[in-house]
């Protein structure tokens, strides 16, 4: 899940408050910014070496995660399993947690379990941080479809247990679409027409906002169009960020941006939150977990939203892409790998675990039992009387196109984010930036020593 990452940039504010120090001192602090990793990681849990715990002397597992309400979920496990006690540590979220984990690996104080978004896993694998799970958690891994497992396996090896998936849908203010007399679009052509109609009716209102700050979102839209940014063949990476499908998506949004038909407020910014709450942004392209986000930032609009399938490039198609979603990996250094696998099997695939995942954490589970349970779950309150939300999630998940994530996703996303931001600021085309992102991404892979196909 990506959504609670809105706090990231403010938490980055290091202690560089007006530096009232002389040259040498200041020079040193500049150096130390680079030298210091995260020094506040928690204690490693490996207090005992034996693989079986008891109520009197339980195995203690440390779990680094940012899942919503995960404390409540773990409390259920802990009360039922006195021999295996799990401790939550909310160190960081998303990419920040990856950085923390890589640093912790160097410092030798990794947790037993770490949550990771699918695109972050290659970094953890290539740093030798995570354990191979095929023999460790075969019961859990048998509960997933092959497409989902592809997100966590390379070659014949599986490195993480999938937790939730984020199939893109579209959340729509149906009441305001009615007010403006605009039908809810089902294709991207209709979407562009609707954008123009809404803008004509009230120039201060936008159909949606284009998100330059989350390239993962743009990746999802490109996946829908059939993009394959990375493919692995014959033990070589092939990079195609400027392929035809991606250019089609970039052209489409560049057109809407050039005509001023979409807002450019970054998702989760104060401005965007306000616009979503006061009805100046009428829709949001987001996965299942988006319902929880809307509930959090625009509680007064509850009941006015509806989730609909993502608009299609050709009428009659049902494709979508993925945004967010995460898995859990077990550290290779953990002395309690079997206990950790037992916990994750419970959390992600047992009846009780998936119930918690759907109802308490409002995630769309990646496992088959989880998806079956969600079909019986109640629709989030923000969607009013809609009854087919979980069914729509299930259909979207099975219609989602995906591609493999390379080991330099973080670099590629950072490059793309800056390129898109600059293009939006200067009013130039997004498509023109793709070739530059492609070149930078290939160069970075080569520099790191990965085999890249010409």
């Amino acid at each position, binding site marked *: 899940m990506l959504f609670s990452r809105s706090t990231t940039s403010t938490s980055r504010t290091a202690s560089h408050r007006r530096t009232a120090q002389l040259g040498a001192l200041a020079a040193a602090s500049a150096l130390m910014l680079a030298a210091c990793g995260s020094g506040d990681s928690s204690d490693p849990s490996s207090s005992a070496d034996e693989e079986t715990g008891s109520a009197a002397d339980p195995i203690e597992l440390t779990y680094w995660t940012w899942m919503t309400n995960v404390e409540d979920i773990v409390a259920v496990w802990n009360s039922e399993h006195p021999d295996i006690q799990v401790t939550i540590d909310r160190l960081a979220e998303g990419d920040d947690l990856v950085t923390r984990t890589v640093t912790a690996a160097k410092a030798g104080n990794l947790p037993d379990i770490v949550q990771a978004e699918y695109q972050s896993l290659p970094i953890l694998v*290539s740093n030798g941080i995570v354990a191979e799970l095929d023999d460790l958690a075969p019961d859990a891994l048998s509960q997933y479809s092959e497409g989902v497992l592809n997100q966590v396996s390379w070659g014949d090896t599986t490195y993480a247990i999938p937790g939730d998936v984020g199939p893109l849908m579209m959340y729509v203010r149906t009441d305001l679409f009615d007010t403006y007399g605009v039908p809810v679009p089902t294709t991207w052509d209709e979407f562009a027409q609707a954008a123009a109609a809404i803008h004509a009716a009230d120039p201060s209102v936008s159909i949606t906002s284009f998100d330059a700050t989350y390239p993962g979102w743009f990746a999802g839209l490109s996946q829908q169009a059939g993009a394959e940014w990375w493919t692995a063949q014959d033990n070589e990476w092939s990079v195609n960020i400027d392929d035809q499908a991606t250019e089609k998506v970039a052209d489409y949004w560049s057109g809407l941006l050039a005509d001023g038909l979409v807002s450019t407020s970054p998702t989760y910014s*104060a401005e965007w939150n306000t616009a979503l709450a006061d009805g100046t942004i009428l829709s949001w392209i987001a996965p299942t977990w988006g319902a929880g986000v809307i509930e959090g930032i625009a509680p007064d609009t509850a009941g006015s939203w509806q989730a609909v399938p993502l608009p299609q490039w050709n009428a009659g198609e049902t494709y979508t892409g993925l945004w967010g979603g995460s898995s859990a990996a077990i550290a290779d250094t953990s002395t309690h790998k079997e206990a950790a696998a037992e916990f994750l099997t419970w959390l992600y695939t047992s009846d009780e675990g998936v119930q918690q995942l759907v109802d308490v954490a409002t995630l769309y589970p990646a496992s088959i039992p989880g998806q079956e349970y969600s079909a019986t779950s109640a629709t989030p309150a923000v969607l009013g009387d809609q009854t087919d939300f979980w069914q729509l999630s299930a259909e979207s998940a099975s219609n989602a196109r995906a591609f493999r994530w390379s080991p330099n996703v973080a670099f590629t996303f950072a490059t793309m984010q800056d390129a898109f931001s600059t293009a939006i600021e200067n009013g130039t085309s997004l498509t023109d930036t793709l070739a530059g992102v492609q070149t930078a991404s290939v160069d970075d892979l080569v520099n790191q*020593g990965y085999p890249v196909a010409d």
Partner: protein
Amino acid sequence: MRTVESMAAEVGRPEAPVPGVRRTRRRLNAKTAPYVLLAPALALLTAFMLIPIGYSVWLSFRTVKVADGSLLGRRTEQAAGLSNYTTVLTDRVFWEAMGRMVVYGVIVVVIMFGLALTFALLLDHPRTRAAGLWRTSIFIPYAVPGVIASLMWGFIYLPAVSPIVSAFEALGLAPPDFLGSGTVLFSTANIAIWGGTGFNMIILYTALRAIPSEIYEAARIDGCSDLRIAFSIKIPMIAPAMVMTMIFALIAMIQVYNEPTALSTLSHAITSTWMPMMKIYSDAFVLNNTFLAAAESVLLALLTLGVSLGVMRATRRFQGVED
């Protein structure tokens, strides 16, 4: 009472013991005392300054490579020679950030110094009323943490909630775009000026108060106007304080990070590598390339040191002091 000569004579005669003083112990102390007293500071300096600096420099000559050439090959750390430095020095993004920082620095230093000096001179003028109140009011922004100040100004700049934009719209005028690519550098500089003027003003004001009033009296007797006193006496006499505050300001400029980072969520014009420090953060903590970030930090630290020494040397020459 003994005279100084008689005490000196006693000291010169070690055989004659002075009651209550053990000579041998005192001589030993005189040799070791400086080291004993310096030890805690030296230990802290070594542990928290020299070792991290050394480690950073070492890291800047390292890199990670994929050893076995497989799709998700294990990354291993290895020597990199000067490759991190050549990467940085040929990186257009790094130089763009440096250029931006220099423009930002010129804006901040010139305006902040003009304001701080003007305020200090005005407060020092004997006919200024309620000087204490003014002094506190100008100083207060410095007490607001940089991040809070940036968020506060961010809301003043943000069109949807900005009181300035509302005022322009109420008057039927086109509101300024504070967060556009052409203006955001000034908007960022404004936050730093707002926060830093009070601090510099206080230092200059304190220096002004230390000037003996006899000099002013002498100048007045010679027929000096207030303006003449300000330019010919006050400013030259507080030059050392001005040099010091100038160095502070230049260092703060090179390390600018808080303000643009806080504003970056509000403006597409601020990228993740907008200022050198932001690029270092991004390389180290977003892209996991601690090695490149270390090389950038070393270069920035050398720049800081060079600028500080340069300013000191230039001003010393300016004041006619020989090295």
